[in-house]
């Protein structure tokens, strides 16, 4: 099984290069090839998930330890990595399939599919890397591809959003590189496991804290946590809809939240202060994100603000777990809290991806994104309406859907850990989210007052098959993911990922092998 590990990067990269070459000759090639690539990768993820026992370590170039120092670049696939890989490639497959119809209206489709493959390859590379500088390189691939994709429609709004995104993204990347420089100065090594060991041995606390602050601001910018969120609403609402769903659903998690978790749990020792900072940032994002979303009338902008808020839940859940672990509290509470956070991460990818695809379908048919001008679409677009309804109920935490369970777990964990204020805030945010999505449903699909599209004389009908298919699959996933609370399913998918974070100290030994 080990030799299959590089395929997660090689296949999408090879796909991107092939599309760039053949796309010039045969126009429709990229359209179908991308979906094939991601279907294959999703299958590979499932195969890995079913057969994974402990972390798989792949040494690129086959260089073994030298005087017990790791010198090769390590690819590490453990429970958390494979969990993220599954999310990335699943959402990637559905977005790519959705794009088949959606992107036919744009020029230069082969460029689009090339960039799409590159972005996903970058994210795959980040989540399975065990090397600091390698993380930086692949993070840049994903980021640069996403800058170009945000500007893909090359109108005023898109260009401006992309410029802002690029400037802030570039600054955050350089902060990350600077902190990698600090860590190299201190430890003279880049392997995460080895760095972790050197930090423990060195014991220079001040240097570590300084580095942590810079790293957190760098990755906080990438994850659009609240003091650093300025770029997200513009960028995510300007991109073509399948890309919005990739950006909101996957990218901010893979190159922002995931790396924060990996570095602050597995590389640095867990401390109470950092746990506190992460919890506070998560809470702020959760509350302020939803407050900013209330006043929005642009449907994609509203969804983008909700992304900040929902990512706040993820960070909050993990942060509470970190606090409990740092206090040597009850491990069961920490496990529950982290499980809630990671569970919500998957759920958010699914329902936010679906909501953006719905918004794309509405825009595809009517050409309007302003909710005041929409309305009465429920009769004309039944599939879009019903899938959107299930996603809305899921994001606002209505019982049979997956969002309910993950939020419930986070709230229960917060109460058990003694953070009553946080649990009340979480409930409060959930209620506002519900109100906000009632507004979306009412004005977009059910209200009959606006109907600007009718005045413009547009023939509105249901969207083509490939778009419907992706939306239906995601809507089904909104139900099916609720089964993650069933122990036998959870043990395969969620528990390995949670274990990586709860038993944070074991990462080093497992990777280095001594």
């Amino acid at each position, binding site marked *: 099984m080990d030799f299959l590990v590089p395929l997660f990067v090689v296949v999408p990269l090879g796909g991107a290069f092939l599309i760039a070459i053949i796309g010039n000759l045969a126009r429709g090639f990229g359209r179908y090839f991308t979906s094939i690539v991601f279907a294959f990768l999703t299958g590979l993820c499932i195969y890995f998930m079913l057969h994974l026992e402990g972390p798989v370590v792949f040494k690129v170039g086959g260089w073994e330890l030298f005087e017990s120092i790791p010198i090769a670049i390590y690819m590490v696939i453990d429970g958390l990595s494979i969990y993220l890989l599954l999310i990335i490639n699943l959402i990637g497959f559905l977005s790519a399939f959705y794009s088949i119809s959606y992107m036919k209206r744009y020029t230069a489709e082969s460029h689009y599919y090339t960039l799409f493959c590159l972005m996903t390859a970058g994210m795959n590379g980040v989540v399975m890397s065990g090397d600091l500088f390698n993380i930086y390189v692949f993070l840049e691939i994903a980021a640069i591809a996403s800058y170009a994709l945000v500007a893909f429609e090359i109108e005023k709004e898109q*260009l401006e959003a992309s*410029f802002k995104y690029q400037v802030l993204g*570039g*600054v955050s990347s350089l902060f990350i*590189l600077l902190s990698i420089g600090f860590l190299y100065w201190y430890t003279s090594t*880049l392997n995460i496991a080895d760095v972790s060991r050197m930090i423990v041995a060195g014991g220079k606390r001040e240097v570590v804290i300084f580095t942590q602050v810079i790293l957190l601001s760098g990755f906080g910018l990438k994850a659009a946590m609240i003091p650093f969120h300025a770029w997200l609403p513009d960028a995510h609402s300007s991109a073509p809809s399948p890309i919005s769903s990739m950006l909101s659903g996957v990218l901010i998690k893979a190159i922002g939240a995931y790396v924060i978790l990996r570095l602050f749990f597995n590389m640095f020792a867990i401390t109470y202060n950092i746990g506190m900072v992460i919890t506070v940032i998560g809470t702020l994002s959760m509350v302020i994100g939803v407050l900013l979303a209330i006043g929005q009338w642009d449907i994609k902008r509203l969804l983008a603000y909700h992304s900040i808020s929902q990512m706040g839940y993820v960070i909050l859940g993990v942060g509470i777990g970190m606090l409990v672990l740092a206090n040597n509290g009850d491990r069961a509470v920490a496990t529950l809290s982290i499980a809630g956070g990671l569970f919500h991460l998957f759920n958010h990818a699914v329902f936010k991806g679906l909501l953006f695809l719905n918004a794309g379908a509405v825009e595809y048919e009517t050409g309007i994104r302003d909710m005041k001008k929409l309305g009465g679409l429920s009769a004309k677009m039944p599939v879009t309406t019903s899938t959107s309804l299930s996603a809305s109920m899921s994001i606002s935490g209505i019982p049979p859907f997956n969002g309910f369970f993950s939020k419930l777990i986070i709230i229960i964990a917060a109460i058990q850990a003694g953070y009553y204020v946080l649990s009340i805030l979480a409930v409060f945010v959930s209620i506002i989210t519900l109100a906000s999505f009632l507004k979306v449903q009412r004005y977009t699909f059910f209200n009959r007052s606006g109907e600007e599209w009718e005045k413009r004389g547009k023939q509105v009908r249901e969207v083509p098959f490939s778009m419907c298919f992706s939306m239906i699959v995601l809507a089904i996933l909104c139900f099916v993911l609720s089964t993650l609370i069933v122990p036998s399913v959870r043990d395969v998918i969620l528990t390995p990922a949670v274990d990586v974070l709860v038993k944070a100290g074991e990462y080093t030994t497992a990777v280095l092998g001594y």
Partner: protein
Amino acid sequence: MILFILAVFLFLIGVYGVVAKRNLIKIVIGIALMEYSVNLFLILVGYVKGGTAPILTEGMTKDPFVDPLPQAMVLTAIVIGLATTALLLAIAIRIYKKYGTFDIREIKNLKG
């Protein structure tokens, strides 16, 4: 020590340029300056006193080498910087075509 502080100072000047300047080209320059300073910082970290460049030649004396790993990292970082700058400039010139100015405030005004 003073060398490291100067490198970080250059980095902060770049940050200042990005945050304070209102001209798109100036912002691009600010990011490029940050890039340079980080590159310089990494190379400063990897320097060994009296070391020579890590290239084997005939009849070499027993000097120590400087650390080749930061050099490999910086080579990568230079190319990444080139890529970022090129994409930023492409978008900046596109924005100029649409708005007729490089000034952020005027762009905001024109957007209304």
